[in-house]
């Protein structure tokens, strides 16, 4: 795999019909946001906005950590279980105390969706007393509402726990979250780079899934110590022995010491904690070196500026230190420093091996991007930590407000989102039919869906989106190479020699091979190989153009496999394709938002489908309207809407006048809502329907 491919390597799962109620509202999206809430929703930062929690104010002044224990009521019952949790709570309340680097363990959890990552994370926090049972319940409920309301998944950035191991020593355990989706695989790799170990959680009844594999490989590339955990052993269908063998065979991991666990029932939790202490290597004590800290996440807080989550790799960082971000070169003074446990708690200093957050009145996340290295202005490190990549948009589409008056609001909303999402790119775009809007670039499809969803839900915008496009590379006659993501900007046929498009390699387990093959075959897919991992488990690998996946591929995969197919894909590079630009003309006027770059073999079918749909949806007007699909000047499909023959109110007398006027005014209102393409008025919903169809057929 080349570097680009590695960055993209991750996975997508299709089982969106997961029985998790909090996903309900997401099913309307084109595919599941499988990354979802890795841990249960409680204590987490919705959209990165800190959630204030009773007893866990987000901003606890440094040294005031004791106020937290005060928030817990004295036990009234002498219940054994209760006192046990109180015991662990006593342990937890000291979690800000400094421990030597040799007693720090930084780890993450790798799991397929539904394999129990959230439950396990909750349990670890509970058992170590980081969160009390009472808080757990309250918070869980609160955040459920929040999540339902906001519609976007929640993720935990990090949680610091204190655990006194059987050897009697107190350990500081940092659980670092990883976003699990392919669009964010770069962030996954940064999160993993901040750890020394990972728990590989596999459902003991289901076995290893494609998504898990991708992340395991990422973890192995980052030299993480992997601890296999077989979860849900309490379920009747659990077969931990079989799954253990499977992990050994597929991943090549020694599973002789795999932990059998049921996070739900609390079985094996202690063993997991002990195993983390015993097996995950401590960070190197490099406190004496110049500061280097790796940013693994960041979000924009309207009051404090960007909040940066980082892992101190070398040296130490203190409040009021002057720091520099090595990739962006920006300098700031640390206003606030702290740890996440899981709420933000302020501390004065953090040392090599520790994980924390800082605020420094940073105006945009673009100044402190994930993967960047923080160093000290006074004592700069010679070299940044490796692996920093600027996010490159892979998928583009046009976003236009349905109501032209909302253009200003859309721009403001995009500006705000970008403060928090450095990967989002946008530039103004205008078209005769759609008015003013923006051409936006996204990391991938999920990212695109999330941004659209947030713009509509959080900013109350009503948007029209054009069919998504990938980035094409055009070899021009003058020997230059032009990158093009907007069909309207594709160089003229005479000026180009060939067009290359991005291809992906797609892997799916054998169960879904039939579905996938059928789908891939329809979409210019090319069968590469069938890999037998074990006798019963095989994967099939297909090469297909990314452009074929940006439409309704996941919807199709999901519906054809009743919601269960899973697959992963990675970018495999650019290849020449026989591509053309298909224009749609209404009454001779090109309809820019409908222009598409399509494979020559599909152009005819796409052209016919679109012209037919437009004929169906555009009402008759006072003149005949030709509707054409054309490649250059060559018309490949055409339809026409005959002229309106008759639209007249026969009677109009006395008392009738007001009523007839109302009718005519209503008709006039309808016209105002239409988009005009040249002289032709196209109803808004016709536009939307054709754009929807285009997403399916292109």
């Amino acid at each position, binding site marked *: 795999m080349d570097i680009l491919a590695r960055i993209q390597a991750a996975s997508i799962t299709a089982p969106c019909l997961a029985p998790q109620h909090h996903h309900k509202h997401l099913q309307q999206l084109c595919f599941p946001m499988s990354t979802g809430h890795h841990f249960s929703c409680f204590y987490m930062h919705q959209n990165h906005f800190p959630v204030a929690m009773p007893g866990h104010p987000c901003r606890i002044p440094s040294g005031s950590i004791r106020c937290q224990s005060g928030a817990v009521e004295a036990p009234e019952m002498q219940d054994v279980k209760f006192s046990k949790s109180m015991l662990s709570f006593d342990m937890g309340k000291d979690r800000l105390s400094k421990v030597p680097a040799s007693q720090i363990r930084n780890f993450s959890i790798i799991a397929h969706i539904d394999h129990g990552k959230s439950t396990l994370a909750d349990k670890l926090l509970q058992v170590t007393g980081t969160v009390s049972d009472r808080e757990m319940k309250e918070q869980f409920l609160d955040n459920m509402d929040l999540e339902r309301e906001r519609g976007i998944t929640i993720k935990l950035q990090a949680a610091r726990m204190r655990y006194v191991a059987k050897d009697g020593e107190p350990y500081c355990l940092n659980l670092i979250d990883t976003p699990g989706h392919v669009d964010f695989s770069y962030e996954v790799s940064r999160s993993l780079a901040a750890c020394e170990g990972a728990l590989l959680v596999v459902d003991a009844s289901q076995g290893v899934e494609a998504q898990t594999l991708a992340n395991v490989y990422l973890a192995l590339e980052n030299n993480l110590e992997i601890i296999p955990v077989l979860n849900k052993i309490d379920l009747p269908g659990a077969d931990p022995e079989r799954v253990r063998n499977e992990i050994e065979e597929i991943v090549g991991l020694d599973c002789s010491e795999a932990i059998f666990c049921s996070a739900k029932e609390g079985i094996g939790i202690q063993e997991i904690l002990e195993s983390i202490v015993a097996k995950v290597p401590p960070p190197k004590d490099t406190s004496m070196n110049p500061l280097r800290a790796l940013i693994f996440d960041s979000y924009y807080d309207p009051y404090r500026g960007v909040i940066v989550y980082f892992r101190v790799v070398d040296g130490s960082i203190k409040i009021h230190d002057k720091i520099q971000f090595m990739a962006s070169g920006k300098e700031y003074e640390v206003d606030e420093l702290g740890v996440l446990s899981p709420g933000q708690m302020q501390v004065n200093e953090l040392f090599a091996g520790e994980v924390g957050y800082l605020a420094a009145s940073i105006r945009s996340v673009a100044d402190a991007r994930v993967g960047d290295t923080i160093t000290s202005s006074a004592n700069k490190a010679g070299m940044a930590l490796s692996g920093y990549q600027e996010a490159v948009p892979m998928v583009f589409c046009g976003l236009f407000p349905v109501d032209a008056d909302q253009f200003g609001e859309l721009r403001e909303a995009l500006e705000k989102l970008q403060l928090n999402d450095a990967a989002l790119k946008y530039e103004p775009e205008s078209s005769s039919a759609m008015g003013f809007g923006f051409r936006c670039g996204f990391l991938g499809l999920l990212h695109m869906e999330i941004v659209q969803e947030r713009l509509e839900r959080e900013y109350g915008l009503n948007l029209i989106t054009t069919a998504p496009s990938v980035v094409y590379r055009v070899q021009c006659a003058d020997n230059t190479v032009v990158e093009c993501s907007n069909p309207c900007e594709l160089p003229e046929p005479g000026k180009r020699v060939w067009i290359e498009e991005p291809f992906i390699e797609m892997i799916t387990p054998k169960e879904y091979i039939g579905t996938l093959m059928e789908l891939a075959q329809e979409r210019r897919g090319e069968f590469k190989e069938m890999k037998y991992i074990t006798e019963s488990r095989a994967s099939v690998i297909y090469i297909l153009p990314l452009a074929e996946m940006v439409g309704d591929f996941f919807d199709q995969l999901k519906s054809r496999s009743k919601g269960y197919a899973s697959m992963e894909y990675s970018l495999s590079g650019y290849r020449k394709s026989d591509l053309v630009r298909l224009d749609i003309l209404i009454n001779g006027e090109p309809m820019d938002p409908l222009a598409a770059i399509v494979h020559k073999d599909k152009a005819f079918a796409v052209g016919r489908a679109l012209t037919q749909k437009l004929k169906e949806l555009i009402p008759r*007007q*006072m003149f005949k309207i030709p509707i054409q699909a054309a490649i250059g000047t060559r018309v490949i499909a055409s339809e026409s809407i005959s002229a*309106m*023959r*008759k639209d007249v109110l*026969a009677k109009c007398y*006395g008392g009738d006048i007001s009523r007839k006027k109302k009718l005519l005014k209503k*008709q006039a209102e309808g*016209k105002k809502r239409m988009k005009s393409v040249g002289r032709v008025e196209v109803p808004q919903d016709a536009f939307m329907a054709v754009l929807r169809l285009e997403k399916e057929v292109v």
Partner: protein
Amino acid sequence: MEMDPGTFDKQTLKQFLGLGVNRVSLGVQSFNEDFLKACGRSHGLQDVYEALDIITGLNVSNWSLDLISSLPHQTLEHWEECLREAIGLSPAHVSVYDLQIEEGTKFGVWYKPGHHPLPDEDKSASFYRLASSLLREAGYEHYEISNYAKPGFQCRHNMVYWKNQPYYGFGLGATSYFNGKRFSRPRKLKGYADFVELCINQSSDNFSANEEYLSFYSNTVESVEDRVCDTIMLSLRLASGLNLNELSKNFGHELRVHICKSFLPFINSGHAVAVDSKFKTVPPDTFSTALSEQSASKVLKDVIFIRLTDPDGFLLSNEIISSLFTDLPIK
């Protein structure tokens, strides 16, 4: 007076004439027994001819005849027969309406506009064109979208509506239009009685309270936008069209120029024509050049009327009027 065949005899009509009735509008609808049944009329063809005998027998020369087109299963041949029969009877005035399918009526349940057995839009348009050409050939002037008259026999009653002039209406649910207000009387008998009583009581001692009460039944004074819309939609029903001089007198010169601009595409497409003070058609080229130049005012001053063409413009009048509404500069 509106009269339906089969609802009066010679004696009745004679008495009406004695009371001063000077015009009869006869709701014939069709000269085909099947279509009469289809459009739910209680009278038959026999009733139609009897009624006509009564009218002509009493020497009523100012009489009108109503016809309905676009009936279920109607063909162009049927319609032509019907029109020729009407012309043969030589009424002073003919009204031709399209069957209007209203939701919530039996017709609305049975038929969907434009779908079999109702004629489609194209056929329905050809009925309209045929009526227009046959009646005009026979000497009738197509003076309003649905109305034809021999010279001097335009319906004076309805012209009041179309010229947007004030009028009084009496009786249940009747509308009046005066002082720029549209006013509609109570629709039910009980409410109507109360209303009349109140009017009597109030008018004797306190006139202003009466006004207030009346305003309860009326819309407030129509807004400028409403008046402009009324003027456009009503005047364009007439062959004479929109009087631009009156328009600028009532609403200002700017609106005149604005409306002329809105009309341009329809004038270019032949759905409307501009007419000058000598009642000559202003060629579309001249009109459009005048609009594009700064010296527009002189030529535009000379354009006195803009009217819809017959039958092309009339047939698409809703589309044209609603486009003009969309373009109006008023909120």
